[in-house]
């Protein structure tokens, strides 16, 4: 047991820089002995960095044949090494799950010996969990680049979600920091898996076979701030992945320097958390607000403003579209107003059927008036109190920020 705890410590340590921990995307009743899955995902706890813990996130092994510069597990790094046996992983997952500590397993690995050897071991763990323990809960698996296609397919029928991390959004950066990875060996498996997911969906709709292939789809992750790549490049890459491979999500990870290397930011550099936050906001705009990357950034405006969020920035750059009348414009247009989100927009649309919406109602519906008031009219009246002019609005919004910061002291 002691030994197992220290192994778990080492292999959790090695997995924690992977951001994704979500357990969403599949609604499944308990088909085995234990476990089910809820489409909305369930967070079980939050660590002291404020991140949600939903899945037991561990590595199969941190022995790595590669030497990717940015990675804590690279073979030239002098750290403690450990590997789990498949039975150990399955048992810990099962026992944690029974106590409702977790929603399932997120199994990743360094590349131990060969990609196929590593994936075989992952596969074995899942088989024990699914068949011996009758586990019907959520499983997310990391795809190891260069794994054979057959093995990947096998994994696809055992796991709910698979992710292959792109890590860097350009060929140039990959070549520099992770020469073993290439855009081709990252994107090709994503494409293949997407085709299989589509085929499986089609089959399921026709024959109602119970075998589902990656029902919660694929995700990926990119590092922010390890290289010179711009926000525009990152967001364009995300947009492409959503469009072409139907990715469920792209995660962004502010780079935390774990090694001293001339190619990378110095070890005491603070992780660019604000920038990461802006990218998440923009990504949200792509997925839930139907924005396109090109609307938010361009070749001449390549990085997000750290002071104002991407939606406000977009609105200020397109001020000719405002103010919008909340009693008239469509749901899609409501979503474009800063301070209005999907929930409040839906409430507005429903409530308009009963009554004309007054300014007082908006706050109760969850609209953030501090931002929204400059961009809308309510029954023809404008409540911003100033001219609809981007410079003046910027100044006003900035003042609000200042007030907020001062009130901390």
């Amino acid at each position, binding site marked *: 047991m002691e030994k197992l705890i220290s192994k778990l410590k080492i292999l*959790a340590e090695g997995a924690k820089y992977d951001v994704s921990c979500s357990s969403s995307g599949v609604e499944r009743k308990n088909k085995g002995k234990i476990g*089910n899955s809820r489409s909305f995902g369930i967070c079980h706890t939050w660590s002291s960095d404020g991140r949600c813990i939903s899945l037991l996130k561990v590595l199969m092994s941190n022995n790595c044949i590669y030497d990717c510069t940015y990675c804590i597990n690279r073979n030239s790094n002098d750290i403690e090494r450990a590997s789990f046996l498949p039975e150990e992983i399955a048992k810990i997952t099962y026992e944690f799950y029974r106590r*409702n500590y977790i929603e399932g397993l997120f199994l990743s690995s360094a590349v131990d010996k060969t990609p196929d050897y590593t994936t075989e071991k992952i596969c074995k763990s899942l088989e024990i969990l699914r068949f011996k323990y009758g586990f019907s809960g959520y499983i997310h698996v990391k795809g190891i680049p260069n794994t054979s296609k057959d093995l990947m397919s096998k994994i696809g029928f055992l796991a709910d979600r698979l992710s292959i991390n792109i890590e860097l959004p350009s060929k140039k950066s990959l070549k520099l920091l992770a020469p073993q990875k290439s855009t081709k060996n990252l994107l090709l498996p994503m494409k293949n898996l997407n085709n299989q997911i589509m085929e499986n969906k089609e089959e399921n709709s026709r024959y109602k076979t119970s075998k589902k292939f990656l029902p919660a789809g694929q995700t990926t992750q990119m590092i922010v701030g390890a290289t010179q790549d711009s926000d525009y490049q990152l967001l364009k890459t995300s947009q492409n992945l959503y469009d072409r491979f139907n990715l469920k999500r792209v995660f962004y990870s502010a780079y935390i320097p774990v090694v001293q290397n001339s190619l990378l930011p110095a070890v005491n550099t603070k*992780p660019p958390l604000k920038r990461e936050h802006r990218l998440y906001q923009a990504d949200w705009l792509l997925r839930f607000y139907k924005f396109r990357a090109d609307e938010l950034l361009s070749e001449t405006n390549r990085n997000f403003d750290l002071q104002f969020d991407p939606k406000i920035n977009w609105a200020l750059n397109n001020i000719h579209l405002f103010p919008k009348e909340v009693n008239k414009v469509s749901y899609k247009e409501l979503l474009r107003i800063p301070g209005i989100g999907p929930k409040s927009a839906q409430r507005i649309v429903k409530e308009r059927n009963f009554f004309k919406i007054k300014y007082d109602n908006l706050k109760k519906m969850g609209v953030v008036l501090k931002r929204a008031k400059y961009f809308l009219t309510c029954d023809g009246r404008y409540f911003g109190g100033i001219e609809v002019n981007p410079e003046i609005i910027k100044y006003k919004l900035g003042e609000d920020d200042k007030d907020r910061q001062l009130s901390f002291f």
Partner: protein
Amino acid sequence: MDYLYDGTYKGLMTALYINYKYKKTTGIFTKNLYQKSMISDYKIVKSNEEFSKKMEEFISDVISKSALKLIYYAYLSKEANKEDFILKFIDLGLKKGNITQLYSHEDTLPIQKIYDKVSKEKHRFLGILRFKDLNGILFANISPDNDIVELIMPHFVDRFKSENFIIFDDKRFKAGIYNKNQWYITNINEKFYSKFSDVEEKYEAMWKEYFKSISIEDRKNLKSQFQFVPARYRKNITEFIK
């Protein structure tokens, strides 16, 4: 006249039925929390299966099925004036129809907000509830703000269908019990004290170690952690118990 009910859902529905079918009330209250006063007269309403069923049907037909769900959640909330909010909500529904579509109206907003709160707590407990293995029976102690045991039972019954388990609400002395076959809610008069096995301690230790290892020091943010896991919940969550 004020109507006093026994605190059960059936009792509340009976009181509502009498209000709409026979005589308008000045207010509905639970019997044991009622403050008698000089001015108002009161009447004790006895729970009635048939009246309660009829009232539920009435709400479903005249307003909507989802309105009934909102009212049920409001009933389970800790909100002091919930009966009053429910009366106003139904009154408006009788005039306007399916008012679950209305959010910010003064007679729907309290119910909508309470519904959001109770739903949020229900969802939260699907995650933060912790079982301990008590020699083969899983046991969870919870102290939720609202009376959510019956809302979370179906989720755990499906998830742990091959286990025996008890979810005990130590604020209300009420437990949800599942015996691999069916589940039910029952009142329990005293708290549970039981020794757990050595294996239990080992898995707890392992989980706590994992919980520490997964955090990233450079991103430390205790304020955000407190927002997600408020202090009042922590006494029942394994990894927060020292």
